[in-house]
């Protein structure tokens, strides 16, 4: 199995916390789409004929694309790669783009999962985060999506923001559970360099992030998912009725993926590579038949470290049978020695492997670092 990620590097406006690659200048839009199609053809052998189980439009803001633009891209995917029968086709969308017609179009395109960037149901938060929508638009678009026929819907909610009190956070969660959607991606607000939020904090125009509040809101989240029949299957991802994000899960499952578009990451089990994070340079590279990217060849050490990073975020954790197929005897020995030294509260040992109990996922980096090679 394998996945395809398509990065749409445009946004109407910049969210204060976001450091993903995007441009608010939309003039290169058609050339980017042409280039992405071109890249697909150039790299059609990257996944070595593995059937595609997931297609994911990320960004940026993929919901900015028209029906026609999405159609062209999707068609090229179907033409170029072998597609599995039950393919997940997911699109990230912002509430302000999701009017009824748009949702009908997306449904027509057989996009079968929506990941909606709601972030909060409080206008105060949305303004601070510099989002383009308001709370009502968020609620409305979800209902319309359900009316149009989307069942597999996820929304993003951010906690720990300077503007979000614990009460506001509880209210956000209550709204979420009242909407009857099966998936939630809930992120702790993380400060990234060179974002507007970083600037605001450095210049004293916003408070520093409150780590204790962040943690309190994580615990509030834990309680409320329990009370509503959800389960946490990854650090920031929650679902009911097994409605996991198949695409994101592939990142944590040692599965190949091909990333198309500027800044997109690819992985073929041996190497990781990522395209240049610059729209013009990306277009130029494609035009010259010379893709602009960086690549790293993974040593066994890197592969081991990546395995720990990705697996210990999830409810599945480290599996001994995986270790045995992927790594040398010495490395497995190292793993066993180190895992015996870890604070037993932080890990749960089972006969099949070890995992981090969810109340400690917030401290998972500590566990990962101590299991690593020195």
């Amino acid at each position, binding site marked *: 199995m394998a996945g395809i*990620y398509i*990065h749409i590097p445009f946004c109407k406006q910049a969210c204060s916390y976001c450091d*993903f690659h995007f441009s608010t200048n939309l003039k290169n839009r058609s050339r980017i789409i042409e280039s992405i199609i071109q890249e697909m053809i150039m790299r059609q052998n990257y996944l070595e004929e593995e059937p595609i189980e997931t297609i994911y439009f*990320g960004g940026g803001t993929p919901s900015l694309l028209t029906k026609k633009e999405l159609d062209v891209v999707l068609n090229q995917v179907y033409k170029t790669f072998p597609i599995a029968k039950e393919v997940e086709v997911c699109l990230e969308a912002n509430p302000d783009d999701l009017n009824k017609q748009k949702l009908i179009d997306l449904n027509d395109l057989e996009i079968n999962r929506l990941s909606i960037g709601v972030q909060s149901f409080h206008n105060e938060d949305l303004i601070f985060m510099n989002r383009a929508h308001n709370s009502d638009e968020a609620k409305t678009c979800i209902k319309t999506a359900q009316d149009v026929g989307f069942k597999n819907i996820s929304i993003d909610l951010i906690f720990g923001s300077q503007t979000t009190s614990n009460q506001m956070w509880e209210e956000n969660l209550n709204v979420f559970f009242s909407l009857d959607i099966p998936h939630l991606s809930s*992120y*702790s607000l*993380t400060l990234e360099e060179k974002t507007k939020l970083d600037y605001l904090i450095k210049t004293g125009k916003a408070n520093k992030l409150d*780590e*204790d509040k*962040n*943690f309190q809101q*994580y615990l509030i989240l834990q309680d409320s998912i329990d009370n509503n029949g959800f389960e946490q299957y990854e*650090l*920031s991802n929650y679902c009911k009725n097994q409605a996991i994000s198949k695409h*994101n899960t592939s*990142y944590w499952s040692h599965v190949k*993926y091909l*990333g198309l578009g500027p*800044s*997109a*990451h*690819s*992985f073929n089990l041996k190497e*990781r590579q*990522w395209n240049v994070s610059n729209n013009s340079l990306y277009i130029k590279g494609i035009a010259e038949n010379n893709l602009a990217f960086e690549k*790293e060849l993974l040593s066994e050490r*890197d592969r081991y*470290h*990546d395995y720990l*990073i*990705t697996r210990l*975020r999830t409810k599945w954790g480290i599996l001994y049978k995986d270790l045995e197929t992927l790594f040398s005897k010495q490395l497995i020995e190292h793993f066993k020695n180190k895992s015996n030294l870890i*604070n037993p509260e*932080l890990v749960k040992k089972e006969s099949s492997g070890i995992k981090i109990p969810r109340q400690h*996922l*917030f*401290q*998972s*980096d*500590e566990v*990962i*670092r101590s299991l*690593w090679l020195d």
Partner: protein
Amino acid sequence: MDNIRNFCIIAHIDHGKSTLADRLLEKTATITMRELQAQTLDDMDLERERGITIKSHAIQMKYMHEGIPHILNLIDTPGHVDFSYEVSRSIAACEGALLIVDAAQGIQAQTISNLYLALEHDLEIIPVLNKIDLPSAMPEEVKDQIVDLIGCNREDILSASGKTGEGIAEILEAIVQRIPAPVGDPSAPLQALVFDSVFDSYRGIFAYYKVINGEIKKGEKVKFVNTGKEYFADEVGVLKLKKEARDSVKTGDVGYIISGIKSAKEVKVGDTLTTVANPCKEAIQGFEVVKPMVFAGIYPVDTEEYEELREAMEKLQLNDASLTFEPESSAALGFGFRCGFLGMLHMEIIQERLEREFDMTVITTVPNVSYYAYLNKTPDVPILINNPSDLPEVTILNKVEEPYIKAQIITKSDYVGSIMNLCIEKRGELLNQIYLTTDRVELVFHMPLAEIVFDFYDKLKTISRGYASFDYHPIGYKESKLVKMDLLLNGDQVDALSALIHKDKAYDLGKRICLKLRELIPRQQFEIAIQAAIGAKIIARENVKALRKDVTAKCYGGDISRKRKLLEKQKKGKKRMRQIGNVEVPQNAFMAVLKLDD
């Protein structure tokens, strides 16, 4: 001998000594432009970066004056208070000195103290106003200062710019005309003043000296009078850009000797060199064994690197005889060394050299001075205390004495008030206040050396916005009300953080140290209590809250590489921390007391 001139340069840091010296070398064709770029008088990287000369060197120039070749020996002096004894020995080897004063900044404390040293040795002083090309130069005012200070004629002051090369020719002329030739008896037994030594990993120690009387010949058996050690003079010569071997070095000249000496410890600056066959009757006056003033523990961050650290320290000592060290062990830090330094700068230099030249990651503990403790049962017997942890229990302790210094500060009159406050806060006692000019004041204090070791320099700099210069000399020991303050992390005493402090300041300092440590110790899986205690009494407490979040939430779009690199960086950072009990303490926390106001 009549055509030899030996001189040094007296200047404050950044007043342009090195640049001016380079110009002299260039003008006398001792060094070409190309060589100049590749090499200056300051050899070590560290010196170049800090812009100061740590170890003195000497260089010989040839200069034609009225058709007669003259030999000019420039003896370079270290430019920092920590090295004042070495400066005094370099000065003793000269007959004259260039007094370089920055035309924009005027006279500074260090210039004055070194000038007094030069005057004590009857050196001919040639005042040079440097950096006259600067837009901010105030040549007339600074000339007034110089006239006031040394009582010279206004027209004796030369003007120069090391940058443009202006005035260099006049300086060379003045050196020949004004500085007297050395006097000495060429037929007397050899008597040479050792003013420096340099370590070479192939040939061992080069000792630098000036021949006062007699001559030193290759192949002779020589003796250092104060250490009593004897060697064969394998090679003697003079110090051009590269060393030039000679059959002998004669009266009045400056040269080097290689004699199979392996370590800088064997050569004492200020010692007298003579021959075994025909020794001089007396040693040259002024020899002292340099004693370290500041002590601190140096420990490897990784306990397994103790032996490597020992080797590194031994190698450093080969070319830095003023560094002392002896093994010690700390309950908190394991095995390490108690090291003695000439001062705070010297300590920083050693720490940096360990990291740069030997790739060692070390923890330096809170520095302290040497104390004398007296016990009740033997109240007349001083016990030397170089480590606060060694202070005897209060119940058996009679009294403690600490070293005092005479501190000299020169500043603008605007800052006098705040500098006085600082010195009084630092237990200083004002002795004298002299207006050098209407807006330049010299303040003289007696104060405990220990206060200088704490955050004095940084504070002085801040208060005076950089317009204060500082110099000091030890003046002996005085009794003091000192107590030992201990620091505890989660209830466990950390001996490496103990300090002797004045009783009246204990509460305030305890509070501030706890606050500083709270800032420096990262949050960990559990809450950490930081306490300051005197004996069994807790005087301050702060908590580091437990770590709540140690995770990068975002790991999407398949970018695993970035997360891996971030974790690698964090893991590396952890390696620079030291586990004490169950608490991980970063390297810099051990010096926290020095940076209380940052």
